[in-house]
């Protein structure tokens, strides 16, 4: 039996992996740097934070999970447009199933941030999508 967070990450990764632009280029909780030439564009799914509280039903825990999806790309020109095009397809894929199968009650895009770096021989950017995901588990599960 897997933790529900793992199920949610896997469901999101599967949805992104189904996109032609990211097929075979999606990872979860990756700790090592991406390699520019071989691996971009790519997406990495992280679950860095979760808050929880007793739900109305005493034996149930309500969990508010933060999911970060990093979309990384390199482009000599119009990198912001490249990242936004990727984000558009990612957001559409996520909105198509906000419960990730039956893993979560709901989810929504809570924020987006963009960061770029041109110190290397290519301009690289990361668009981070923050998802707010709500799910319930039995207390102690």
């Amino acid at each position, binding site marked *: 039996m897997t933790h529900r967070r793992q199920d949610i990450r896997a469901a999101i990764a599967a949805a992104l992996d189904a996109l032609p632009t990211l097929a075979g280029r999606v990872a979860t909780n*990756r*700790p*090592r*740097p*991406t*390699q*520019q*030439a071989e691996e*971009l564009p790519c997406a*990495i799914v*992280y679950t*860095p934070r979760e808050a929880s509280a007793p739900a109305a039903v005493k034996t149930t825990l309500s969990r508010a999970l933060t999911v*970060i999806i*990093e979309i*990384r790309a*390199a482009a*000599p020109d119009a990198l912001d447009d490249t990242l936004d095009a990727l984000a558009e397809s990612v957001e559409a894929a996520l909105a198509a199933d906000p419960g990730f199968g039956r893993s979560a009650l709901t989810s929504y895009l809570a924020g987006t941030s963009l*960061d*770029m*770096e*041109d*110190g*290397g*021989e*290519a*301009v*690289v*950017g*990361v668009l*981070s999508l923050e998802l707010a995901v709500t799910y319930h588990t039995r207390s102690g599960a």
Partner: protein
Amino acid sequence: MDFSLLDGAVLAAFGERAGGRSVTLADSGIEIDAVFDSRPFEDGLGVAGGSSLSTTIAVRIADTGPVAAEARIAVRGRLYRVKDRRGPDGAGWLVLDLERIA
């Protein structure tokens, strides 16, 4: 002491020609000599960051003349664009930061 007297020796030892390679200003087709350097670069973006290369060539401005901003340079089988020019320094060397475009 005139350190510029060493320039020829530096190019003879470390220049691309010394290695049997060429450097071409792609827009004019002019071949020049240069010291090529490409080192690891970590971008620090996001959680895990990304790894790539930071690539420069050093040229003598006496050999190349002014190098245009965004000039294209072909070296080691790849095409780059000049994204920054540093110098010339007191010895007449110009360091060109390169952006890979092909």
